[in-house]
C-alpha cells in the first residue's frame, strides 16, 4: 500500500472521542500541518475517526509517523496492515 512517494497509510489513534466532534478534523489537520509542514495535502487524510473515538488514517512517511507518535494526545501510531477473513 505504499505510494510512489514512500508514504503509506498509518493509523493515528488518539483515544476517546472529542467532546466537540465537529472540530475533530481541524484538530487533526493542525497536528498534521505542524508535522508534515507546507507539503501537507488534505487529501492524504483517508478517514477521520470522530463518532466513537478519536483518530485518523493518513498517508505518511515513516519519519512523519514517528513525529506524530511523539505528539501529546497521541496514544499510538501504526501502519494500516491487511487483515484477512478467517
Amino acid at each position, binding site marked *: 500500500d505504499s505510494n510512489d512517494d514512500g508514504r503509506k497509510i498509518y493509523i493515528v*489513534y488518539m*483515544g476517546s472521542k472529542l467532546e466537540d466532534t465537529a472540530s475533530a478534523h481541524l484538530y487533526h489537520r493542525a497536528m498534521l500541518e505542524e508535522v508534515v509542514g507546507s507539503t501537507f495535502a488534505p487529501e492524504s487524510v483517508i478517514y477521520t475517526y470522530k463518532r466513537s473515538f478519536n483518530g485518523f*488514517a493518513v498517508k505518511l512517511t515513516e519519519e512523519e509517523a514517528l513525529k506524530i507518535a511523539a505528539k501529546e494526545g497521541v496514544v499510538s501510531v501504526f501502519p*494500516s496492515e491487511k487483515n484477512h477473513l*478467517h
Partner: protein
Amino acid sequence: TTRSWDFLGISQNVPRVKQVESNIVVGVFDSGIWPENPSFNDDGFGPAPANWRGTCQASTNFRCNRKIIGARAYRSSTLPPGDVRSPRDTDGHGTHTASTVAGVLVSQASLYGLGVGTARGGVPPARIAVYKICWSDGCSDADILAAFDDAIADGVDIISLSVGGKVPQPYLYNSIAIGSFHAMKRGILTSNSAGNNGPKSFTVTSLSPWLPTVAASSSDRKFVTQVLLGNGNTYQGVSINTFDMRNQYPLIYAGNAPSIGFNSSTSRYCYEDSVDPNLVRGKILLCDSTFGPTVFASFGGAAGVLMQSNTRDHASSYPLPASVLDPAGGNNIKRYMSSTRAPTATIFKSTVVRDTSAPVVVSFSSRGPNYVTHDILKPDSTAPGVEILAAWPPVAPISGVRDSRSALYNIISGTSMSCPHVTAIAVHIKTFYPSWSPAAIKSALMTTASPMNARFNSDAEFAYGSGHVNPLKAVDPGLVYDASESDYVKFLCGEGYTTAMVRSTTGDNSACTSGNIGRVWDLNYPSFALSISRSQTANQSFRRTLTNVVSGASTYRASISAPQGLSISVNPSVLSFNGIGDQKSFTLTVRGTVSQAIVSASLVWSDGSHNVRSPITVYVLG
C-alpha cells in the same frame, strides 16, 4: 445453518424473547451481503428499532430491507479489479456469516442436495447491519476502524468480526483491539474468530481480554466422499463433492505424468503446473498430497482428483469431482494401479455420516498461548466451524475458484464460521439480560461451556479455551465474572501502558498509579492461566469477584479438579449471595510443579443447580 444450531441444542422452538430479539442489531463486519438471499427475507419484520441511527448505502443495485437495516462499505485504497464499491457481497463470506448469526428460516436449503434441511441463524428475528470492510485483497486496519467508529455510533448491539491479522500486536496498536475496546465502553460485545493458523502454538492473534476469541470445532455431521475402483474396492475420503461422475474413468498417478521441467518426485504432489494436462485429460488424477482449489486449473481437463492427507478433519469444495483419502487408501489405490493395465475409478457425490467424536477442535483452528499477555488464556471458547452450510451469493464461486456451479447456500469451514455462532448466542443471552455488560455475557458463555477432551485436542485449553459453548446453559449462568472499563484500564496499566495512554483511551482521569497497576492475575477473567519457566515452581494467587445474577439467596461451594503435583486452593471456598447483583470475592492459589508442557485443572462453583466452571491452565513457557 442446517445442523449446527440443533447440535448446540438450539432447536427451532427454543424459548426466545422474540420482541427483544427483533430489536437487536447485529453489526456484521465482513465482505458485505447478498440481500436477495432468502435467509434475509424481511417478511413479518417491522420498522428498524427506534434507537437505530445507521444508514444504508443504497444504490441502483443494492437495497436494504427490514431485515438488513444498515449497510456501508469502507475502502481506503484503490479498489481491486472485479470488486464492487458497494455493500454487496461477491465473495460469499459475509453472506455466510451474517446468515449464521441471524438468517431467517429457509426450508430445503442445501448445496446441490448436500446438507439439506432448514437453514436458520441463531437469532432469526434479529436485524443485520452490514459493514463491508473486506475486499478481494484483504481487510485493512483503516477500514476496520472506520467501521467500528460508525457501528458504535449507529447503535449496533453486538459486533461479529470473523477477521484477523497475521501476527499478534500490542493491544493499543491493533485495530480490532482498539475498536472493540471502544465498543465495550458502550456496552457492545465484539465476537472475534481465533484464526486459521493452527495447530501451531501462539497462532491466535485475537488476544484482547474484552472480547471473546472463538475456536472452531466439528459437529456430528461429517461429509464423506466414496471412491469406487474398477476392482470393486471402495475407499472413504473427505470432501464436499456435489458432482456425481456416474461412470468409471481411467486412473493416472501424478508421479507418472510430470510436465516439462518437472519430474516424478515433484509431480506426484501435484504442485502447480507440475502435471502434464495432456496426460491427465479425461482421467482421475491421484496425487500424494492435498492442495487448494486454485491448483486444479493447472490440471487442464482432468475428470477428477484424488488427494491424500493424514489430517482429514474438515472437508473442502473443489471445482472438479475430488476426494481426500488417507495415505493407506492412497497406497492401496497405487497397488491396484500397478496390478492392472487399465485402472479405473469413480468418485461419488458426498454423503453424510454421523461423527460421534464431535465436537473436536479442528486442526486449522489457531492455538494459544496468548503471545502478548501470557497469563490470559486464549482462545476463550469453541463453537462449530466445520462444514457449515449457510447463505451464499449466486455469483460467488462455490470452491473459491470459478466453475459452472451457482448456489444460494454453501458449505465452508473456518473460525469465521464459529465466530457468528458465539455472536448469536451472545445476542440470545442479551435478550434475557439486556443490561449485562460485554464481560458478563462473555463470562456466561465461558463458565457454562461444556468441557472438551484433551485426548482429542492435545493442546487442551490452548485449542478450546473454556470449552464448547452451551447456549441453553449460557442463559442461566448463576454467577458471572463481570468487568468494566476501569478493570481493563488497570489491566493495561499492568501491561505497561502509561497514564497518558490510558487517559486518552478512556477520556477520563484514569491513571496508572502504584495502587492502580493491575496484576494480570487479578483481572476478573473467567479463566485462569499461568505460565512458568521450565525450572520454576508454580506459586501464584489470582483474585476474582463473582456477581450473582439469580434472584434469591444462594450458597456456592468451590470444587477443584487438579492433577497430581499441583496444589490449588480457593479462599474462601464457600460464598453466600443475597440476591441479584450481590458480589463476593475469592482468591485462588496455584502451587506446585508441572511435569508436562500443559497441565489442565478446573474450578467449579456450584449451588447444586448452577455449575460455574473455569479452566485453570498452567504451562511451561519456552
